């Protein structure tokens, strides 16, 4: 086929747009991180300059590490995110397997029931959720957050995973059955390993919203012991509004873990989105 000739001016214009948008997308993040390494004077005098020998300072980070329990917050966020993801994947995959593998009365109805939650934000039930948590003594525990995130992550997880499980070959499962494997073994040892890419997609989709949520930590677990990184940095920064070094360092410390996670998982995330898993 004849290649269509592209006007070099167009190509240049297209790249100019991309570069300009990259600057727009990254500028705030870069400015915050750069200035977190500067002295207070330098922050105000030359906010756009790189830190140099004169202006370099870690004063902000010292305040953050002394005043805010960032490691504690980080640990809480990590526990909540990892445990919620574990339950979303385990329970979600089990339910998806039941829905996609067996024909039983009420299968379609059950599928619909579990799918309603995809469109309804769980926040609208907050009033009742708080009452349930108060009644069961789970307020200010990480368990409360884990339960809520598991419940809210399940509908989409089940939807995506059952789509994938329908594609697992029936012959393989039947061969397992002939060999005398129980249904549980078939699920855990045959099916689950085959849908690993789908599991990863679901994990990556749920990870960011859980890590970043402010609403439920604020309402269900605002105690010092259970603060997540998102809530912790919100409160910390709110208290230190006038200490610019501390605020900028606090922000940078909140950015760092998400960026790391993103760099590790960005391929998976982008592949997950572009594979059309969320249509």
């Amino acid at each position, binding site marked *: 086929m004849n290649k269509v000739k592209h006007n070099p001016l167009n190509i240049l214009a297209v790249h100019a747009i991309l570069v300009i948008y990259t600057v727009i997308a990254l500028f705030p993040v870069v400015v915050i991180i750069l200035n977190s390494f500067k002295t207070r004077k330098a922050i105000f005098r030359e906010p756009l300059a790189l830190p140099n020998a004169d202006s370099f300072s870690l004063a902000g980070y010292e305040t953050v590490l002394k005043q805010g329990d960032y490691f504690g917050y980080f640990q809480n966020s990590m526990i909540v995110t990892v445990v919620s993801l574990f339950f979303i994947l385990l329970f979600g995959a089990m339910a998806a397997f039941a829905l996609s593998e067996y024909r039983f009365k009420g299968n379609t109805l059950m599928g619909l029931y579990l799918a309603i939650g995809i469109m309804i934000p769980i926040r609208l039930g907050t009033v*009742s959720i708080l009452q349930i948590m108060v009644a069961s003594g789970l307020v200010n525990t990480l368990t409360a957050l884990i339960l809520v995130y598991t419940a809210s992550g399940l509908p989409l997880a089940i939807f995506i995973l059952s789509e994938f499980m329908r594609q697992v070959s029936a012959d393989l499962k039947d061969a397992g059955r002939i060999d005398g494997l129980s249904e549980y073994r078939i699920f855990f040892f045959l099916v689950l390993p085959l849908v690993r890419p789908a599991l990863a997609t679901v994990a990556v989709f749920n990870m960011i919203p859980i890590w970043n949520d402010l609403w439920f930590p604020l309402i269900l677990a605002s105690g010092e012991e259970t603060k997540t990184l998102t809530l912790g940095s919100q409160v910390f920064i709110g208290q230190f509004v006038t200490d610019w070094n501390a605020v900028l360092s606090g922000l940078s410390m909140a950015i760092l873990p998400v*960026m790391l996670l993103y760099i590790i998982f960005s391929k998976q995330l982008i592949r997950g989105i572009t594979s059309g898993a969320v249509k």
Partner: protein
Amino acid sequence: MEKRKTRWHIVVFLAPAVLVYSALMIFPLFGTLQLSFFDKIDQQQVFVGLDNFRTLFFNARWFDSFWNALKNNTWFFVVHMLVQNPVGVMLAAILSSKVVWFSAFFRTAFFIPTILSFVIVGFAWKLILSPIWGIAPDLLDLVGLKSLFLPYLGLEGTALTTLALISVWQFVGIPMMLIYASLLSIPEEVLEAAECDGITGFAAFWKIKLPLIWPSIGIISILTFVGNFNSFDLIYTTQGGLAGPNYSTDVLGSLLYRTFFGFQTQIGDINMGATLSVVMFGIILAGVSFYLFAIQSRMRRYQF
């Protein structure tokens, strides 16, 4: 024929998900609905029928707050539709064209704001737009527009639009990725056929690709709608619980928070909070149904 035994493994597979989901998602929604029909009188929950809804819609003070939040929320959504989605489509169209170098790099970079929490995004922009720090005026000075600088987040007239644009900046990655995916799924033959007819570049986008990605744009619009009508975090982070200045950035989510928990001068009210949640649920349901029945069913889909 032998009667089939109950297949217990199905129950075991379904039970954990169904239990957690029912207990913390479906049950609370009904619980909230129920609470909206009750009121606390002398420390007792008393059934009052639709009184709470009457208060919300006909008591001038409640209705003003609700109407203000609904109006602001609608504008918030309109800004997203007018800016976020077109910009997302444009970036996706550029990224999917074959002449672009480093497209993976740009894709990764454009998605970075989306992964940051509202707390980070809110404070970062608050600092950048702050007249004390002066980054924004300095930047405007570079392009000779310093006179345009205002404390955008502090003025009643500009705060809401500024917040909406910050939110657009954060979330433009999502429409970009989804549109990018659906652009990639357009078969090569279709585009080649168009090329043979002399339709290339911009014309190919308008005449061939855009009609094919309308369904994705529809899905993005409804995702944006649901997200916007329960947004709260960004406003709480930048403007605080009072959604200042003078409630000009109050949306339904922040109104719900104040109603439920109370804030400074106001005491929290579980029943009115529940009522407001039910109304928000109605709004979201109406939007989603409108999309499903009025728009999606009329949209033409092409199968390859």
